[in-house]
């Protein structure tokens, strides 16, 4: 099976789209209130580092996906078990984004339409794209993701007249505590979620660019988050901002003369589509590699359907979703996003440095027995 390749730009766009994903409707690091920008900077730096770790893992194990790396480094059994956990994580992640999407549309645009229908329709589109393979996903990203920052820019610029540029003051009113907490949640959402890209990195056609791509997209994402934050807080004020459900949407409502919230919908569809697409792709690819199935397109539909069902069943209502995301998600995600990748990185480094001294076979045995 020939490996499909994507170009650096395509990976960059997919990665950026993934990072914009839900942050387009749920402003990140809101827990820090007026200091969210600080949290974004700190979290963005941490996030970029985390993503660089993923890139390093991928570079240390060239042209191997996460599942293959897990199996190799941790042994067949343990590796497979962890891989299955990852599959669950990817699917869960996709279902979370689906739910965000559904909640948003149901609240803002179509209150009478059942959320299941909305999510299913969205899922149909995403699955169709994923079935086209990495190459098609890459090309879609290339075409559609640039739309997101464009719209954000349009809205931001046209709202510049109603801005109160000092609205983010005072700095650090409540100390560093909430800021760090928000930064941590910003690292796990969205940066840590890019762990799914470990299934995609092997498809990059020019490996030497990987680190740069990862870094630039993380920086861009943080930058845009900051822009969005400053726009939102100067338009809404910090008091209102802490009360509204979907901050960027409320901001677009203030667009002079016309209501442009379809733009937010479009952004959400592109960003969310990229995110869900990558997650579903990662999950199906992982399943096919764990189970040894060659053709993954049939799996895509099943996984997509499962995500939809999961997203509808998972939470009782919108507040359940929000409080879960806020409280539990960070800790739940850290296992998958930080701990296991770190172990993998260490194992990869050990394995790579050792062959120079001893024989390969021995090493494998040692690591496998661990």
């Amino acid at each position, binding site marked *: 099976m020939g490996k499909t390749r994507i*170009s650096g*730009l*395509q990976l960059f766009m997919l990665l950026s789209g993934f990072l914009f994903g839900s942050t387009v409707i749920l402003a990140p690091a809101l827990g820090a209130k007026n200091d969210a920008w600080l949290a974004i900077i700190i979290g963005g730096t941490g996030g970029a580092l985390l993503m660089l770790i993923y890139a390093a893992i991928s570079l240390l194990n060239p042209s191997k996906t996460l599942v293959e790396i897990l199996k190799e480094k941790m042994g067949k059994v343990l590796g497979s078990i962890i891989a299955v956990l990852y599959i669950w994580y990817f699917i869960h992640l996709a279902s979370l984004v689906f739910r965000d999407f559904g909640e948003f*549309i149901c609240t803002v*645009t*179509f209150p009478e*339409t059942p959320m299941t229908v*909305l999510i299913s*329709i*969205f899922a*149909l*589109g995403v699955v*169709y*794209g994923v079935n*086209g393979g990495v190459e*098609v996903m*890459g*090309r*879609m990203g*290339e*075409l*559609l993701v640039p739309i997101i920052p464009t719209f954000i820019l349009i809205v931001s610029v046209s709202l510049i007249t109603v801005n109160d540029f000092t609205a983010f003051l005072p700095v650090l009113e409540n100390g560093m505590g909430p800021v760090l907490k928000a930064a941590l949640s910003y690292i796990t959402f969205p940066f840590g979620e890019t762990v799914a890209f470990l299934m995609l990195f092997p498809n990059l056609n020019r490996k030497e660019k990987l680190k740069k791509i990862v870094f630039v997209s993380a920086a861009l994402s943080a930058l845009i988050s900051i822009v969005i934050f400053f726009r939102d807080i100067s338009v809404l004020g910090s008091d209102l901002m802490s009360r509204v459900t979907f901050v960027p949407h409320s901001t677009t409502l203030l667009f002079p*003369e*016309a*209501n*442009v*919230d*379809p733009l937010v*919908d*479009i952004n959400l*569809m*592109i960003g969310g*589509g990229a995110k869900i697409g990558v997650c579903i792709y990662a999950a199906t690819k992982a399943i096919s590699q764990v189970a040894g199935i060659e053709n993954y397109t049939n799996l895509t539909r099943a996984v997509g359907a499962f995500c939809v069902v999961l997203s509808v069943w998972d939470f009782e209502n919108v507040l359940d979703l929000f409080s879960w995301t806020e409280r539990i998600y960070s800790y739940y995600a850290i296992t998958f996003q930080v701990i296991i990748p770190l172990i993998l990185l260490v194992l990869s480094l050990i394995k790579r440095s050792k062959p120079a001294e001893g024989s390969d076979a021995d090493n494998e045995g040692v690591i496998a027995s661990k």
Partner: protein
Amino acid sequence: MFGRIRERYREAKHKFANVRVDASSYGPIPGKIKAVQARLDEIFSQCNDLVIKEISCGKDGRIKILVVHIEGIVDRRLLNQDVIHPILDYLPSVQSEDSSSIYQQLSKCIVISSDIKEVHEMWQAVNFIVSGDAVIFIDGEDRALVVGVKSPEGRQVEEPDTETSIRGSREGFVENLPTNMVLIRKRIKNPDLKMEIMQLGERTKTDICICYIKGLANEEIVREVKERLGKINTDAILDTGIIEQYIADNRLTLFPLVGNSEKCDKLAGKLLEGRVAIICDGTPYVLTVPYLFIESIQATDDYFDHAFFASFMRLLRLLALLTSNLLPALYVALVVFHHTVIPFKLMITLAASQQGIPFPPFIEALLMIIAFELLREAGVRMPRPIGQALSIVGAIVLGEASVAAGIASNLMVIIVAITAVCSFVVPPLIRATMLIRFVFLAAANFLGFLGIMVAVVAVFTHLCTLRSFGIPYLAPFSPLTAHDLKDSLIMVPIWAMITRPKILRQQENVRGVKGSKRQEVDKGRDSQKG
């Protein structure tokens, strides 16, 4: 359902394969002239247009010669002047009894035509006869001479109706293959311009010419074209449209994956970009591959005009394309879902225009668009003189009266009219647009802008999966080829287009005879300026 069709298709394929075996089972040319005549009579039974002229020569006229051709498709004067006259003038002096020496003399010095071939198989001879050549059989020889005396008769070269341009050549291709080849050759005077002729269609024996510039066109694409053409298994090729459907990468897509043109200068341009052309006898439409999406919004005129103007026109065409696809859908989404988007005053206007319309906007739009498509189709199919009447009916009855009767709102009429106008701006995509418009419309009625977005993304995904002869359909945008953007939506002036579209992976990318020479020329010009 598809399964059934597939079965039938396979059966039919088998039949055609058998036909092919029959065709080559004519056997070799028999040595005896009697036998030849008998075979010909058998093969061409009930073909009253077959002419067999018998000439006797040699000592005592013992050796018989048959000149066989089909009435009407040979050039009578040429036949007489090149073949019949020389033979009649010269043969009396031949006294040889050896048929092979007569054959030699005939082929070497008697027949004056420059286009002489030798065939050994009967089916070959028959092929040439039916395609308008004269075949000379000689008693005692198991081979025959083919003399090219095809009649060039046909339509005169004239301006094509389908593609008109303001500037640029007015010559369009005609139905005659040699004429078309000449038209291309006239524009590209270079031995690198290769024209390979093959025959397709078991029954129709249509001449197909694959045309490309060696050194520019990607060898792989040329090979691929030949391979796909070779795989065509049908008995009738009546038009390039049939070839197009056989060789397209994705046979189910609505989007054109093979380009066609009736204009010689356009084709020459495509060839010079490194594309491969397929000319088919009997059609003025010439195919070009690979065909990319961007070509739909390029026009030949663009290259002859100021780059700013051309760029503007291209953006306009893109806008028209989007409008003709999306406008009705956007309108419907706006008036049935997204009331919050509409400003108050516009809302009053919209609501006022819909007052008293019995149908929901979606049905209204559907009716109006179908009415328009009917008018368009009627305009194409019916005899031209009636066109006037039709347009009056269309304009007055459908536009004016439906509004007056309160069936359609005047805004909807305007929207359908704009949609219609825009759809004509991008001719290659008219058919795709026509169907996709309904999809968008239905999506808009279902979920408003969201539905449109899903549909648009789905169409984009589809476009992203498409390839034309291995080249991604949406190139140069996706995958982004920065190099080729110079001739995409924004066009740089022609003198700045130093390289050909890179995505086609030509062997030689720099325009100008040789890259280095070009640079020298540029240098010279600069120094002149300085």
